[in-house]
């Protein structure tokens, strides 16, 4: 039986933690990131009994891994 990770979430999200949250590699392609994000969000959706804290973390993780791939797409 694999040992559970210890402690809580990191105070500031890192790429490594983001990859762990989504269960993918840091170098995964954007399509894979989005697919993993979708799957995990469905499992942890707040409206379906999940916790909004975890849902926020999952979104943060996806933003971190998808955002880095794009060449600084800013809204402004």
């Amino acid at each position, binding site marked *: 039986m694999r040992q559970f990770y210890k*402690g*809580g979430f990191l*105070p500031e999200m890192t790429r490594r933690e983001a990859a762990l949250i989504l269960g993918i590699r840091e170098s995964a392609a954007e399509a894979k990131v989005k697919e993993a994000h979708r799957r995990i969000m469905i499992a942890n959706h707040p409206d379906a*009994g*999940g916790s909004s804290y*975890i849902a926020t973390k*999952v979104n943060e993780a996806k933003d971190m891994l998808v955002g880095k791939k794009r060449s600084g797409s800013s809204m402004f």
Partner: protein
Amino acid sequence: MWQGMRARSAPMPDEPTTCGKGGLCHTYITLHHTESFVACSHNNLSQVFLCWSSAARILANLAVAGATVLFRAATQAYRQALVNAQKSGVTADSVGAAARLGKQLTRQEAEQILGIEAGATWEEISKKYEHLYKKNEEAGSFYLQSKVYRAKERIEQDLQAEGVPTPDLTDIHTQQQQQQQGATGKDA
């Protein structure tokens, strides 16, 4: 020092009023030290500042000196604080520091992870834990599953320390036991 020098705000009749370079040359400044000095916007700005009253210069030197002293004091204090921190080892806010590093799970974060309120019953906690644990086992990541487990573990420890009973109300672990028993049964 000020005798023999007089302040003027307008040029003498014979004095030139421009520097001769043309253009924006309408700024005439009479400087106290040198009565005949005619300044205009073409001149170097530093020359203009040099000829302000020496009182301003003294003040400026004082300000710079004061700032230097303050800066040195600040750096020394910072160094001393670092030394103190190293010597004392476990300080009062090392717990806070560890929590900030994410290595220590706080009660508050544990409650947030499970999505429960501060005064939740063990039954509610158990229900949320079971739901999240199963969901993340099926379709989540092992990392999230770990966090859910650690959150429940943290609250369980807290409640046990308070003396609240925390029986295993979930069927997660009993399922696993049944699976193991079933497997051994087949072999036999």
